[in-house]
């Protein structure tokens, strides 16, 4: 089974469809906070929905306002299942914990080596690992 180990984690075990991004993420700079679709022109996932996905982002972007944004998208029922960051910052963690969205940071190996967008993955923040549950042939 393909496994990614993470260094830091918060939240319960969740499963969902993986969405891998080569580019960092800000819920304010990149996301349409009414549809859950990444809309910033030029973002590598422009046009892609993050709703109910397990989202892998290499970095966190954005400032303080992002802290309320996760709660806002959870309230609107357009939140992802989990945020998996390579490198994150306090605002992302404060926002995710406040919204009750699982979040992890630090990864080995790079998820791109073992996980593809569309794979069904299980995130276990307490055990600090992410596993591929199944993948379409």
């Amino acid at each position, binding site marked *: 089974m393909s496994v990614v180990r993470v260094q830091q984690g918060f939240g319960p075990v969740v499963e969902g469809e993986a969405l891998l991004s080569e580019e960092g993420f800000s819920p304010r*700079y990149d996301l349409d906070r009414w549809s859950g679709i990444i809309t910033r022109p030029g973002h590598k996932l422009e046009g892609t929905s993050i709703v109910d996905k397990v989202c892998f982002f290499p970095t966190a972007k954005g*400032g*303080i306002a992002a802290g309320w944004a996760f709660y806002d998208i959870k309230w*609107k029922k357009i939140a992802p299942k989990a945020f998996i960051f390579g490198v994150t910052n*306090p605002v992302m963690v404060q926002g995710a*914990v406040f919204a009750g969205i699982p979040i992890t940071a630090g990864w080995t190996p790079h998820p791109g080596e073992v996980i593809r967008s569309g794979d069904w993955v299980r995130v276990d923040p307490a055990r600090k690992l992410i596993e591929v549950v199944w993948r379409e042939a």
Partner: protein
Amino acid sequence: MELTAEEREILAGKLGEAARRALEYQVEVGRFWAARRMVPVTNVHLMGDIEVMGDGGLEFLREEVRLGARCRVSATTNARCIDFAHCDRLGQDPAEVAKEREIIQCMRRMDVITTDTCINYQTVYQPHLGEHVAWGDTGTVIYANSVFGARSNFESGPAALAAALTGRTPEYGFHLDENRRGTFAVRLDASLDDLADWGAVGKLVGESHQNYFAVPVFHGYRRTPTADELKHLGAALASYGSMAMFHFVGVTPEAPPNIKLLREKTVVTGKDIESVYSGYDLGDGDARLVVFSGPQQSLFEVRRLAQLFHGRKLKEGSSCFVTTNGAVLAQARALGYAKTLEDAGVTILEGVCFYILQNLSPLRRSRRWTNMVSNSAKIVNIIGAHRFNAILRRSAECVEIACSGVLR
């Protein structure tokens, strides 16, 4: 985490349900960062307005008020999204305006002081060396850490509010000595005569070193920088680099005595600064929107703008916005600076930031603005979320663009 007897009592409900929930939340955040304990804070600065919070955030605040939430330390608010004197002219949504008024009432009931400013460090509270605070937005945090030698992480709205209710914050990041040391050196080989030049330095250094834990050490500069110059430098570093601290040899209190131990050494030259300005795409050449905001203007910045706009008029069809806080605006009115700006056709907005104005995207579309010109590298970076093509120019050039309608 090691919790004190008092903290265990808060978790047992001694200070009420709102404080209990707040500390429980802070402990979770602290665990994520492997914080060993909580650290008392003396001052909180928090962001909370309807544009950033949304209806869910407003409902959360209502619940906090119902639970009897009260600040245990002095807490002030960041810039908000509505200036009630201008909301109709800006076409802001009346329903959202009403929610903004309710948020202000909720904040006041919790004993939050609604200063509505992102330049609290220039006008409201100046913490001392080693003082722990819980501040947001990012520009306030980097100024506190760097220039005052105070200690804060980026504290988002919910986190800062929790700190206000418990009087403490988890001890991680920039509360700890080991994260406050410089990580790379930047020699400033440029004259940096305008505030926009300082923002350009922040853009160059921030973009190339994006990391919350990167701490640049500036050195080699031949003049004493002013508070406004350090403000634009810090705001841009935080915005482009997600950075929370910098050192400036001979200027900031925790700067290292020498930079020999830093392995990475870079230089910013005057040519580099010029390349920032020449790097902007001027789009369709639209020159009808010039903004002095993000951060709000200090009294000195307003005075300088008044000098530049004195006796001039905005080009017909153009708009120019200046944002500042109530205290600066009152002084600017008393001193005549505000009148000079308004006589020129400039709109002064109080207590807001242009970037977070409620309804900004629809406003852009209705005014058919495509470009936004500013002397703030920070707002040039973040306004793209509203699909403006943003262009950094020096202060006097911004004024010239506003009055001539010609973008160069």
